[in-house]
């Protein structure tokens, strides 16, 4: 059932989610800026071909757009997407000593946000019995592939979060 803005989600949950999205977007922007400054890898469009060959997936948010917002489906996609990106970020481990702290923070914040969503689904009785498990993530075999993977994964994550932010703001309207 599509949801109007005054949804059954607690306001504090929505405010926390909005803050967590902004925090992850800040972390992601730092990583993108440093990948560009250090390695001249500034444009995800230049790495589309590599992305295909590495098989880097994108997470859908199809049941979230406001005209057909479907709470269970939307929260579930939000959680699965965050869970996917958490796994992809983990696969980038060893990207470089200088970027490792930034990548760690980003990954921890994505994991935190996924936990916030999951626990709210459990509180609403919407959570499936089994927690999702990580599917096969791409393997990055060279330093360049990890850096290029970093550019692509972060760029996909930022687009995912922009849509999530719009949905959460819509839901948070009084």
């Amino acid at each position: 059932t599509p949801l109007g803005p005054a949804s059954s989600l607690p306001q504090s949950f929505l405010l926390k989610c909005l803050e967590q999205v902004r925090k992850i977007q800040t972390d992601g922007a730092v990583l993108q800026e440093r990948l560009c400054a250090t390695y001249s890898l500034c444009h995800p469009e230049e790495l589309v071909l590599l992305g295909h060959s590495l098989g880097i997936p994108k997470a859908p948010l199809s049941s979230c757009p406001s005209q057909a917002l479907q709470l269970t489906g939307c929260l579930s996609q939000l959680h699965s997407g965050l869970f996917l990106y958490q796994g992809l970020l983990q696969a980038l481990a060893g990207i470089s000593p200088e970027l490792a702290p930034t990548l760690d923070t980003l990954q921890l914040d994505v994991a935190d946000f996924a936990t916030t969503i999951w626990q709210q689904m459990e509180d609403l009785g919407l959570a499936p019995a089994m927690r999702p498990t990580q599917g096969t993530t791409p393997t990055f075999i060279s330093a360049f592939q990890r850096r290029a993977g970093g550019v692509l994964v972060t760029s996909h994550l930022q687009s995912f979060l922009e849509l999530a932010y719009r949905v959460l703001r819509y839901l948070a309207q009084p």
Partner: protein
Amino acid sequence: ECGHISLSAPIVRLGDPITASCTINQNCSHLDLESQILWRLGAELQPGGRQQRLPDGTQESTITLPHFNHTQAFLSCCLHWSNSLQILDQAELRAGYPPATPHNLSCFMNLTTNSLTCQWEPGPETHLPTNFTLKSFKSRGDCRTQEDFILDCVPEAGQSHCSIPRKHLLLYQNMGLWVQAENALGTSISPQLCLNPMDVVKLEPPTLWTLDPSPEVAPPQPGCLRLRWELWKPSLYVEQKCELRHQPQRGEASWALVAPLPPGNFQYELCGLLPATTYALQMRCTRWPLPGHWSNWSPSLELRTAER
């Protein structure tokens, strides 16, 4: 080993009795086993040793120090031999108190070090080596159910604060925390805190500037001042509210508070002030509407109001 001391307990509460016994065994052949065993505490001879010969021929002396009120001392078992006092064995005695309950446990999330820092009052001196440990666990509801434990946080020696690094934290979930104090005489546990790290975030203060005069904008009215501010960069993702206080630099007037300032707007015209007066302005912010601690007040910005 000629002599050997055994103690009722090596560590006792300050003022409690301590009983020690020293046995001199036979294979100290060159010893005149009849001579009296003497006790020395530090450098002072202690009367009151009760000596007896045991069935197996060894000599044993027992002494009780009724109220041991040194925090630390050495008890020696001695014997006269060829007109000199011979020390045969020595034991270290210690006394103190079991740890009091650590209290005033409080924590705040530090966005600079990205860690949760907790501090507490250790309670009175115990005179004994006492280990403090900050224990914590992740929890769903109100910390009554303990889910997975977080690594013990051991403070540096003598410190009463400890920081849990980001990688052990779920910033937006509840966690239970308490402090355990332990020494040879006992263990005590502080009351438990239940908190969500981001709900105890403490931000750094904003930075204040004067608004540069510009042709398009009329200068401020007499008795008014214009200022602008920037939130602390690492906290830009946190929605916050701020308040301003001001005080004439001279004279005894106390701080006047201007609160709340309109969120999202980073400049303000402050009016109702005395003309031709230099004011000190300070600002602080807190996470809002979600919970958080107030930042410290920013360093003062000094501005002077126009002449009438």
